[in-house]
């Protein structure tokens, strides 16, 4: 239906964008503003459009002075240091610098296209300096950008899954859809996300453990487009097993649980594995700096499961959870409800309690209230789990997004295996985020990469049309 001229659509679109998320819409809008005919294909139904953008909340933006949506200043140097710290240097420095420099324009550019931000100095998280928060979150951003794109004449198709990129010697003719029809285009921008919803593919990196992962992100990120590109000799970037994974409530849905499935209680209790053993320092650092490693930690445990155990004081120290914690008046009773061995759990709690220091903890600082003599020790906020009732959360690794993708240059052109850029194939967003984010995670940088490279891809595609 998209190939013909009978329904008023062009036979060959100027620009075809795969994915109606943040990156895809930034690309589509930029290209449409430059006068291109643009079609956007999204695999999800309209209500679930936009990939993982629906689950996002903010973007990280450099700024030299306070703005209406960001406090204080966040310099290029500080941003770059933060990125180097979390990635341990696994990044393309040129593309990283480009991302950070261009991040300064984003709130203004998006704001001019209908995206609303929360005013600076409001909000739950203490990120008002580095991150600009979308009013209502990522889905509200999608609504605004889709509306704006439609106003520019961009054609949006939902429930339209791309099965194959038609690639010939680095030149892309268009795409083949899941229903076997073909859409032709002069330039193709793929913003099709990662493959976190493809557990079989994840298993290639993680082994059978992947089957026990919960997918926090969209179920439509199956990696079909990425696979099609890699199969046709596009240069990959990033490691297969690198992803953003946090410890989430094991009762969360298999797919699409999003932000609400997270558990913030780990620093205020202990976490046991299936065999009722502690396995990592729960109080290593503030939770916002540690939550992103706990997915991997739980994934490394037997059966990929963990159990956070707290008492009635600890349970009040963090944001409420989407699922009511499991509760019991005794440790043994709680263990029984969680499926843990009661005696072993009792022993683990007693051992921990006996190793705790005297005096109250202070959760507003790294208080140094550490256990002594445990393996591993808990190095901050160690308070006995002593005041009933007791609470437990079962934990699973929750994968949000993957890092392996396609390599691009500073024009967002996809590179072929020989390192030469494709003539007319571009990428933005999660599918190329691994160029900048080789490992680790910095809150809000995914949206920054998507918006920056989406804009670059849209502009470069339009510029190269030679119309």
């Amino acid at each position, binding site marked *: 239906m998209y190939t013909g001229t009978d329904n008023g659509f062009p036979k060959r679109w100027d620009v075809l964008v795969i994915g109606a998320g943040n990156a895809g819409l930034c690309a589509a809008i930029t290209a449409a503003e430059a006068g291109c005919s643009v079609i956007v294909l999204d695999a999800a139904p309209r209500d679930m459009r936009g990939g993982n953008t629906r*689950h996002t*909340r903010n973007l990280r933006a450099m700024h030299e002075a306070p703005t209406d949506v960001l406090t204080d200043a966040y310099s290029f140097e500080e941003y770059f240091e933060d990125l180097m710290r979390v990635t341990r240097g696994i990044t393309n420095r040129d593309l990283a610098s480009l991302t950070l420099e261009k991040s300064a324009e984003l709130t203004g550019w998006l704001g001019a296209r209908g995206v609303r931000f*929360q005013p600076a100095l409001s909000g739950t998280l203490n990120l008002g300096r580095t991150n600009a928060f979308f*009013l209502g*979150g*990522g889905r509200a951003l999608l609504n605004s950008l889709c509306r704006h794109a439609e106003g520019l004449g961009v054609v949006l198709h939902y429930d339209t899954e791309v099965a194959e990129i038609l690639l010939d010697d680095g030149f892309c003719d268009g795409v083949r859809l899941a229903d076997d029809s073909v859409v032709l285009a002069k330039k193709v921008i793929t913003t099709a996300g990662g493959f976190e919803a493809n557990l079989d593919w994840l298993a290639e990196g993680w082994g059978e453990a992947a089957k026990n992962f919960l997918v926090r992100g969209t179920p439509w990120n199956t990696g079909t487009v990425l696979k099609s590109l890699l199969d046709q000799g596009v240069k990959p970037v990033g490691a297969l097993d690198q992803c953003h994974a946090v410890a989430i409530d094991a009762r969360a*849905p298999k797919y699409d649980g999003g932000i*609400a499935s997270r558990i913030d209680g780990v620093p205020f209790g202990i976490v046991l594995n299936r065999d009722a053993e502690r396995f990592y320092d729960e109080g290593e650092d503030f939770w916002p700096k540690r939550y992103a490693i706990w997915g991997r930690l739980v994934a490394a445990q037997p059966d990929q499961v963990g159990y956070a155990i707290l008492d009635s004081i600890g349970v009040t120290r963090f944001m409420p959870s*989407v699922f009511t914690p499991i509760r019991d008046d005794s440790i043994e009773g709680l263990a029984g409800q969680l499926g843990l061995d009661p005696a072993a759990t009792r022993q683990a709690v007693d051992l921990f309690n006996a190793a705790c220091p005297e005096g109250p903890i202070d959760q507003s600082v790294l208080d140094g209230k550490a256990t002594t003599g445990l393996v591993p020790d808990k190095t901050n906020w160690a308070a006995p789990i002593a005041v009933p009732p007791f609470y437990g959360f079962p934990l699973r690794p929750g994968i949000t997004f993957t890092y392996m993708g396609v390599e691009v240059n500073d024009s967002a052109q996809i590179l072929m295996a020989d390192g030469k850029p494709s003539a007319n194939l571009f990428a933005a967003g999660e599918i190329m985020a691994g160029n900048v984010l080789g490992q680790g995670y910095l809150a809000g940088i995914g949206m920054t990469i998507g918006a920056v490279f989406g804009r670059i891809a849209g502009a470069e595609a339009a510029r190269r049309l030679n119309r």
Partner: protein
Amino acid sequence: MDDVSLIDMARTPAHEETARIMQICNACRYCEGFCAVFPAMERRRLFDVGDTAQLANLCHHCGACYHACQYAPPHEFAVNVPLTLAERRAETWAQYAWPGALSGLFSQNGLSVVMIITAALALAVGLMLAMISPQLFWGVHVGEGAFYVLMPHMVMAGIPMAITAFTITAFVMGWRRYWRATGARWGGWPALADAITATATMRNLGGDNAGDGAGCPGPDDRNSLARRHYHHATFYGFMLCFASTSTGTLYHYLLGREAPYGYFELPVVLGTVGGIMLCVGTAGLWREKRRMEPAVRPLSKLGMDYAFIWLLFWVSASGLVLLALRETGLMGLTLAIHLGLVYGFFLVLPFSKFVHGLYRFAALLADAGEARRSAV
């Protein structure tokens, strides 16, 4: 004197659904920039019946959080905050209604309102036709005291006074019940000032909290301030009509001058401007209600909304018609219709959509106190 535990502690399905959804929202919090509901939610960890009642009555039902929600249907969490709070809200009005024996009027409220108004209208027109000779009723009367040729001032003003005494008692009792059931506390004069400002500006309906004042999403998810503007027209139009009646009363008793007053005298100017604002405002609100996103419209409550909107419209329109025809032979009939509608309006007030104003203000006042205490 009230046994609150009997009135409102029922864990109804609407309460349970509100509590379920608020637990999800409280773990997400993406909507916290929209309005007062979400910061109020964040101050709570558990959602008992008083909490769901308070949150429900804080909600202005704009729909922004539904459009923004990553967990809205078809997601399996099936979060629909505006619809759920609307249903809980309507339920609380029946629960806190005084006298409780009449709270059944809130179910099938559209029908109840229409029947009461029809009865009042029939009574007014019927009684005037029966008690006044046709020559007088259909005659032309001009000049001071023209209205009272048909109906003595004592009667015309006495009936609404009696009705108003009942209405005010019902409001006071409803407010008390709400205040106790939600565990609200007086937050001091600054909190009262906050609540009055929030009411006067309707800052929770239209994105002022986002700092851009761009409005709330309509059915096409396009931001619009239309509902706030129409509500302002309705609210301030109502206030002008109230001022018109009050100045008329002062004219009557202080200046010793009897209605009808000249077209450019204060009571008539206030009433005319107010009446036109009410007509425009209510017609606009009706249009906006019909345009509302279907997914967030509580079908069971639409009758209540429409009945009240149209009642306000016709009360105002009949007043304007009376103004236009008061020097013709139709003055008697239009006066009877207008009085019937006005008397019926005041009678039905405590059992109509009007109470949203009472409980919204109570919720805003309680919330302002809460916010100030938590900020300390």
